[in-house]
C-alpha cells in the first residue's frame, strides 16, 4: 500500500530526475541542481546531531573536508574508481566521526560545541600543512573517475548523486520511524530515564554522530568529484556557517527541511548578486516579521524580543539591499542577519511552519492499535518458589552489603545492608534526608558507592553505571517524574522494550524493523493495560493527569523485564482513588512475583503492601522487620518523632499519623 507521504516523495524524486532532460544542455543549471543534491546529503547528516540529538555541532564541514580528500586522494594517488572512492570517503567520515564523538559526546552544551570547533580547525590546519599528501594550500586537482567503468556525463553524475540521496532518504526514514528515532526523542526529554531503561544515551549519541559524519564524508567526496578541485580553505568556518544556515532555515528534525535548506543555501549567492531580487526578498521578510509581530501583539500587549528581533534584522537587510555598495562584501553579515531572524522568529524553520500548516489541512490518519498480547509473554512470572512474606523464606534475590556513599563531607549512606527475597515487596522508609534515595540511586547505578557491593541473583551488579545496572535487571521509577514528555504513553513504554529489538542498525535502515515494531506496540499496550492506561495509549505523556504519569513510569520500568523493581515514592501526591489504583497495580506486580523495593512516606500504604520494611536514619539501618514490628520499634519512633520516651500502641498511633501527614 502506498501512503500519501510515499507518493509525495516519489513525485519529488521524479521531478528532480527529469530536470536534466529539460535543462541538460545548461551547465549552469546542472551545476546548481547537483550542488543542491550534495548539500541535501550533508545537511541530512548534520541534522542528525543538530536536530535529533539537539547538540550544536560545529565540526561538520571538517567531515566533508576529510571525505573530499579521502576520495580525491583515493582516485589521484591510488587510481580507485568512483564507487570505492566514495565508500572510502564515507568510511573516513564514519571512523573520524566516531573517534571525535567518543570523547566529545561525554560532554554537554558548550564543551561539545568547542570540541567540534577545535576539531574542525585542526583538520583544516592538517590539510594545509601536510603538503606532501594534499598539496596544501595550492589545492588538489582531480579527475572524476568512472562509475563501474562508465564515464559519467554531468547529467549522469547528477543522477548518481540523486540515487544516493534517495537511498539515504529511505534509510533515514526507516531509522527515524524505528526505536532509534524514538530514543532520540527520549534522550532529549530525559537522558537519565533513557539510561535507566537500559538504552545507553552515550552509545546512541556516538552512533548517530558517526552516522551523520559519514554522510558528511560522502557528501564531501561528491563535492570533490563535482568541482574536481580541492582546497583546504573551502572547508573553513564559512562553510560551517552556511551548513548551519541550511539546517536552521530549512527546519530541524526534517528530511524535507534538509532538502529545502539545500535549495536555499545554493540560491543565496545568486540572490546576493542580483540586488533588486535581494531587496524584494528583504522587504518581504520585513513585512512578514511586522505582520507576525502585529499578530502577536493581539495576544500580549508588550512587544517581545521574539517579535522585535526579526524586525530589526530584516530591517537592516532592507537597508543593506537599498544602500550597500556591494552586497557581496557584506555576504557574511547578510547570512548572519538571516540566521538571526530565523533562529529567533522562526525556530522551527520554513519546513516546520509548512508542516504545521499542512497538518491543519490534512489530518494524518493514526495507525490503528494492535491487540495487546498476553501479559505472560511480556512479563513472564518469575520463579514461583516458597510462600512469600514469611521470615527467612524465599531465595534472596538482592543482597546489598556494606554500601557507603559520601558527598564531600556528608555521609549519605553508611555501611548499608539489605536483603530482598523472591516475590517480596520490601519497604524502605526513614525521615527526610535519611539516605533512602541515595540508597536506591547507588543500587540502580546512578552514583558509584564509596564502599560495598550489590548482588542481584548472586551476580555482582555493575556499580556507578545506570545503563549496565538496568541491563543487569534493575528497573526503577523516579521521585521527580522523568517521563519522555513529548512521546505518547505507548511510545514511552516502547522505548524500554529492549528485549523486543534485536535487529542491527543496517537492517533497520533497510526497512526490516517493521515486524519488531508491531510486536513492541502490542507488548507495550499490554503493559499499559496492566497499569490501567490502555485507553490512554496515544495521549502524549505531558497531557496525562498526574496520577497516570506516575503509573506510566511503573509500566515503563516493567517493560525492561526487571529482576528487581525499585519504586521511588509512587504514591507521592496521589489522590485517594489513585492510591487505590496503585494498590491494584502492586497486586498485579506481586502476581508476577517480581521483587520490589518501595520507598514510601504513606505509612498505611507501606503497611498494606510491604512484606518487610527496612528503616534508615542518618544513612544507617536502624531497624528491619515486618511492618508490625517496625511500628512498635522504639528506635524508629525516636527517629521520626524525636526522643519522646514512650512505649506501646498509643505512641505508634501518633507516629503513623505524623508521618503520613508529613508526606502530603
Amino acid at each position, binding site marked *: 500500500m502506498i501512503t500519501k507521504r510515499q507518493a509525495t516523495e516519489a513525485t519529488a524524486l521524479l521531478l528532480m530526475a527529469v530536470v536534466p532532460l529539460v535543462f541538460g544542455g545548461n551547465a549552469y543549471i546542472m551545476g546548481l541542481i547537483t550542488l543542491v543534491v550534495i548539500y541535501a546529503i550533508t545537511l541530512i547528516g548534520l541534522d542528525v546531531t543538530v536536530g535529533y540529538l539537539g547538540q550544536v555541532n560545529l565540526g561538520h564541514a571538517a567531515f566533508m573536508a576529510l571525505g573530499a580528500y579521502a576520495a580525491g586522494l583515493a582516485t589521484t594517488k591510488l587510481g580507485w574508481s568512483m564507487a570505492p572512492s566514495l565508500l572510502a570517503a564515507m568510511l573516513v567520515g564514519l571512523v573520524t566521526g566516531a573517534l571525535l564523538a567518543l570523547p566529545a559526546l561525554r560532554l554537554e552544551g558548550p564543551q561539545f560545541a*568547542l570540541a567540534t570547533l*577545535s576539531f574542525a580547525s585542526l583538520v583544516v590546519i592538517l590539510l594545509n600543512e601536510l603538503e606532501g599528501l594534499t598539496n596544501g594550500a595550492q589545492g588538489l586537482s582531480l579527475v572524476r573517475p568512472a562509475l563501474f567503468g562508465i564515464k559519467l556525463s554531468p547529467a549522469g553524475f547528477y543522477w548518481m548523486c540523486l540515487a544516493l540521496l534517495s537511498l539515504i532518504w529511505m534509510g533515514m526514514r526507516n531509522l527515524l520511524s524505528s526505536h532509534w528515532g524514538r530514543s532520540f526523542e527520549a534522550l532529549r526529554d530525559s537522558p537519565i530515564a533513557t539510561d535507566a531503561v537500559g538504552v545507553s544515551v552515550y552509545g546512541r549519541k556516538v552512533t548517530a554522530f558517526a552516522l551523520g559524519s559519514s554522510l558528511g564524508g560522502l557528501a564531501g567526496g561528491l563535492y570533490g568529484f563535482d568541482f574536481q578541485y580541492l582546497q583546504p580553505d573551502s572547508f573553513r568556518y564559512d562553510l560551517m556557517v552556511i551548513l548551519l544556515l541550511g539546517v536552521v532555515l530549512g527546519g530541524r528534525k526534517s528530511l524535507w527541511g534538509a532538502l529545502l535548506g539545500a535549495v536555499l543555501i545554493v540560491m543565496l549567492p545568486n540572490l546576493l548578486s542580483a540586488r533588486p531580487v535581494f531587496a524584494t526578498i528583504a522587504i518581504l521578510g520585513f513585512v512578514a516579521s511586522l505582520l507576525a509581530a502585529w499578530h502577536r501583539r493581539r495576544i500580549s500587549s508588550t512587544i517581545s524580543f521574539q517579535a522585535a528581533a526579526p524586525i530589526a534584522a530584516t530591517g537592516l537587510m532592507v537597508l543593506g539591499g537599498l544602500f550597500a555598495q556591494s552586497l557581496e562584501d557584506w555576504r557574511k553579515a547578510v547570512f548572519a542577519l538571516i540566521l*538571526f531572524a530565523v533562529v529567533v522568529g522562526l525556530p522551527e524553520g520554513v519546513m516546520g511552519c509548512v508542516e504545521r500548516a499542512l497538518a491543519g489541512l490534512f489530518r494524518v490518519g493514526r495507525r490503528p492499535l494492535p491487540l495487546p498480547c498476553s501479559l505472560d509473554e511480556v512479563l513472564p512470572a518469575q520463579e514461583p518458589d516458597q510462600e512469600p512474606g514469611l521470615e527467612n523464606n524465599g531465595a534472596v534475590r538482592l543482597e546489598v552489603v556494606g554500601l557507603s556513599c559520601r558527598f564531600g563531607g556528608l555521609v549519605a549512606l553508611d555501611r548499608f545492608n539489605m536483603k530482598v527475597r523472591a516475590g517480596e515487596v520490601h519497604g524502605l522508609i526513614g525521615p527526610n534526608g535519611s539516605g533512602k534515595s541515595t540508597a536506591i540511586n547507588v543500587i540502580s547505578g*546512578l552514583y558509584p558507592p564509596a564502599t560495598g557491593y550489590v548482588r542481584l541473583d548472586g551476580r555482582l551488579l555493575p556499580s556507578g553505571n545506570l545503563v549496565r545496572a538496568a541491563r543487569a535487571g534493575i528497573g526503577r521509577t523516579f521521585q521527580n517524574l522523568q517521563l519522555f514528555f513529548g512521546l505518547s504513553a505507548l511510545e514511552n513504554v516502547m522505548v524500554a522494550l529492549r528485549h523486543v529489538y534485536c535487529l542491527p542498525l543496517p537492517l533497520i535502515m533497510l526497512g526490516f524493523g517493521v515486524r519488531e515494531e508491531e510486536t513492541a506496540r502490542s507488548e507495550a499496550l499490554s503493559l499499559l493495560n496492566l497499569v490501567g492506561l490502555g485507553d490512554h495509549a496515544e495521549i502524549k505523556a505531558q497531557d496525562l493527569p498526574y496520577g497516570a504519569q506516575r503509573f506510566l513510569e511503573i509500566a515503563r520500568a516493567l517493560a525492561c523485564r526487571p529482576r528487581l523493581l525499585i519504586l521511588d515514592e509512587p504514591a507521592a501526591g496521589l489522590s485517594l482513588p489513585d492510591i487505590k489504583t496503585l494498590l491494584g497495580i502492586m497486586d498485579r506486580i506481586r502476581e508476577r512475583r517480581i521483587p520490589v523495593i518501595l520507598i514510601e512516606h504513606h505509612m498505611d500504604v507501606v503497611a498494606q503492601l510491604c512484606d518487610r520494611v527496612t528503616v534508615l536514619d542518618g544513612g544507617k539501618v536502624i531497624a528491619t522487620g515486618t511492618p508490625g514490628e517496625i511500628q512498635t520499634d522504639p528506635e524508629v519512633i525516636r527517629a521520626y518523632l524525636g526522643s519522646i520516651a514512650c512505649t506501646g500502641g498509643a505512641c505508634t498511633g501518633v507516629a503513623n499519623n505524623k508521618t503520613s501527614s508529613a508526606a502530603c
Partner: protein
Amino acid sequence: MELINNGQMLVSGAAMGFVYALVAYGFQMTYATSKSINFGQGELVMVSTFISLTAAESGLPYALVVPLGLLVGAGLGLFVERVAVRFALAQKSEGWILMTIILGLFAISAAENIWGKDERPFPTPIGRASLDIGGGIGVTPVELSVALGVILVMVLIEVFRRWTLLGKAVDAVSADRDAAELMGISATTAIAISYALSGAVAAFAGILVAPITSVGPSMAATLILKAFSVAVVAGLQSGGGVAVVGIGLGILESLASFHIGSGWRETPGLILLILALALRPNGIFGKAIIRKV
C-alpha cells in the same frame, strides 16, 4: 644560540599566554553566572580594539584610549547578553551558542567593511626597545605591560567579587541562581553584569596585545580558539588556574611555531583542548558534577 632562542620564545610566548588567560578569565565569569559563554568573544575583542584604534588615531591620548576601550567592551558585552543570550536562557535552550556565533559573524563582516581586511599597527606610548634580562634574552616593555596589566585586572575583579556588595550578588547567582533570586537578587542583572565585565576584560586584552600582534579581522579567530582551550583545560567552573594554563599554552605554541613551522602554531592549543576534554572534561582545576534526579 639554541638556548637563547628557546628562552626568547619562552618570554614572548608567556606574554601571549597572559592575554589568552585574560580572555579565558572572561569566559569563566559568564559561565559562572549563566552557564553560557560568548562564542563571538574574539570578534568582540577585535571590534573594541578597532574602535580604540580609531580613537587613538584621531588624537585621543593613550590614557583616555584605555578607559574608552574598556567602556566599549563592557557595552558590547551587554549588547551580546541582551541580544543573543537572554532569550535563549529564558527558553532553557542552548540557542545562545548559535546566537553568539551569529553576532560574531555579523561583527566580522562589519569590521571588514568598515576598517578593511588588512592588519594595522596599534600605537602605544610604551617602549618597544628590548631590555636584556640576562643570558641574551630580551623582554620589551610592551610585553611587560601585558603581564602587569593582566595581573592588575584579575586582582581588581577578585576584589570586586569579594569585597563589594554587587560582586557578592554576582557570586551568589553563580553559586545558586534560585536561592539568590529568593534572596531578592536579580539573576538577570547579575548575568548582565558578568557579561559587561567579561566584555571589558576582553577589550582590555585586545588593547594590551594589539601593539604586539597588530589589529585586523583575523585576530578574532586566532585569539578565540586559544582562549577557549585555556578556559576548558583550566576548567570552566574554576576561577584560578587560567593564568597557569594560559602562560603554559602561550609558551607551547611559541615553541611549536619556532621548531615545527609557523603553520603549526595553533595545533598545541587544539590538541590540548581535545585531550583535556577526553581525559578531564571538567578541566584540571574543575570539579566533577553530580547528576541529580
